[in-house]
């Protein structure tokens, strides 16, 4: 059966975006740095707005802002004289300030900038799908190539370092990949909402399994499922796709929590 090109692109975006967010979300949830995800998604949004302001491709602006945020957040989170949540909170407020400053300075209607807040999977372009496919491939490749090291870092960073794993470069690579995943999905999910897609699917998966491999798999499936449901509901009701995706992933988390075997053990 031949799908109309737009529908095919939308389905591809749902699968690719959901999978990538679900995968990087596992390390955000396992390392207990959800606020880093929030800061990163807002940094991407700020970068896109600045890109619009100075006439650079907004996705390039978002990618640069995410990488910058990663290299700032990493060392700040490791400083023993600063509470990590405080330092990440400061970065969050700075990027939010930059984003709103950029919006304020933009001439004319600000619809392009505001579209990066909400995103719209229904308007996904061929280029968006290509960017998302490349990004999902990079995340998946990184995970497959370095799975044993990633497991060590997620178990305990100090132990990983002590057994000879290059823990710091891996930690930074994970932060940067998280930021780039946010960037790749900025058009479709939106900078404000993508954070939930990074947190909810792995949190749901976490409730249901004692195996890390299964957690990655379930998280990717929940991410894909949430995006597909969001797409369908958006089609049927004309509701904003990003919002429906987030609500769906939140419901999945609620159900996982309710039926979690971990609640019954111990």
């Amino acid at each position, binding site marked *: 059966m031949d799908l109309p090109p737009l529908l095919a692109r939308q389905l591809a975006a749902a699968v690719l975006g959901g999978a990538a967010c679900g995968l990087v979300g596992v390390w955000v949830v396992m390392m207990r740095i959800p606020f880093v995800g929030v800061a990163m998604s807002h940094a991407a949004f700020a970068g896109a707005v600045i890109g619009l302001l100075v006439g650079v491709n907004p996705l390039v602006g978002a990618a640069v802002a995410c990488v910058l945020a990663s290299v700032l957040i990493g060392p700040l989170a490791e400083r023993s004289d600063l509470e990590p949540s405080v330092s990440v909170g400061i970065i969050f407020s700075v990027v939010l300030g930059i984003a709103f400053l950029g919006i304020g300075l933009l001439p004319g209607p600000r619809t392009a900038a505001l579209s990066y807040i909400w995103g719209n999977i229904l308007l996904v372009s061929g280029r968006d799908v290509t960017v998302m496919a490349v990004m999902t491939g990079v995340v998946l490749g990184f995970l497959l190539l370095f799975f*044993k*090291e990633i497991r060590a870092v997620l178990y305990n960073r100090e*132990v990983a370092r*002590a*057994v*000879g794993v290059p823990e710091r470069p891996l930690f930074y690579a994970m932060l940067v990949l998280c930021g780039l995943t946010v960037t790749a999905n900025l058009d479709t999910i939106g900078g404000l909402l993508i954070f939930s897609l990074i947190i909810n699917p792995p949190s749901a998966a976490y409730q249901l399994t*004692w195996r890390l491999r*299964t*957690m990655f798999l379930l998280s990717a499936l929940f991410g894909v499922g949430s995006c597909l449901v969001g797409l369908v509901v958006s089609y049927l009701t004309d509701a904003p796709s990003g919002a429906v995706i987030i609500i769906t992933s939140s419901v999945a988390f609620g159900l996982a929590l309710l039926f979690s075997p971990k609640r019954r053990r*111990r």
Partner: protein
Amino acid sequence: MNPASAAVVRAPGGRVPGPVVRLDRVSVCYYEHIALSDVSLEIPARAFAAIIGPNGAGKTTLLTVVNGLGDIRGGRVEVLDTVLDRRTVRGLRCRIGYVPQHLNVDPRAPINCREAVLLGRVGRAGLLRRLSAADRAAADRALELTGVSRLADRPVGHLSGGEARKVSLARVIAQEPEILLLDEPLSNLDPRAADELEALVVRLHRRLDLTTILVTHRVDRLPPAVTRVILLKDARVVFVGDRAAALAPDRVAALFA
């Protein structure tokens, strides 16, 4: 140089093999705080040494200088005949087993004990290489040696304090280390669990020909196998010598005064 800190920690039997750890005027600072000041020290192969001192004396810092986790600001550290620097530190860590005092493990973490023990093989295996059958066999052997094979499939968050320490020991034994670093291994354990773990550590030290360095602030719970003692106070080594001399009542009283 502090004459006490320059003394050599001798191995049991009085033989003095080449030192496996050699610290020369090592200092460690965390921002304005001096954690270790101008420490020189040698520990020979197969010694069982204890670092003793009050809270905040720099015991953990001294221990982690050996595997490069401590942030060395001055001096020279030589471990297993290799100068510890940025280039050599990862390779050395693969040969040094380290059990930290506090291991923050999420009680619901999706990792079981066998997988946690296998982590000890990850550094040795190297990047872009899968863990081999030999790696898995080494992990199983380590679980057996530490008496926790029955826990292999249990989630790491579902262990008692004593079991968790044994699984940590199994992880470092799976590394097939030459040096074992233990940070307060018996703290927060009930007397029976502490006795069991102490006996296990001593057994592993002897059976695997390890050089063992443990940190403790409990002079009353020093394993009898410990032959040489390093006393640490206010970031400085104040005594290095044999057990009997180190535990003289007036010396212990001065240490904790």
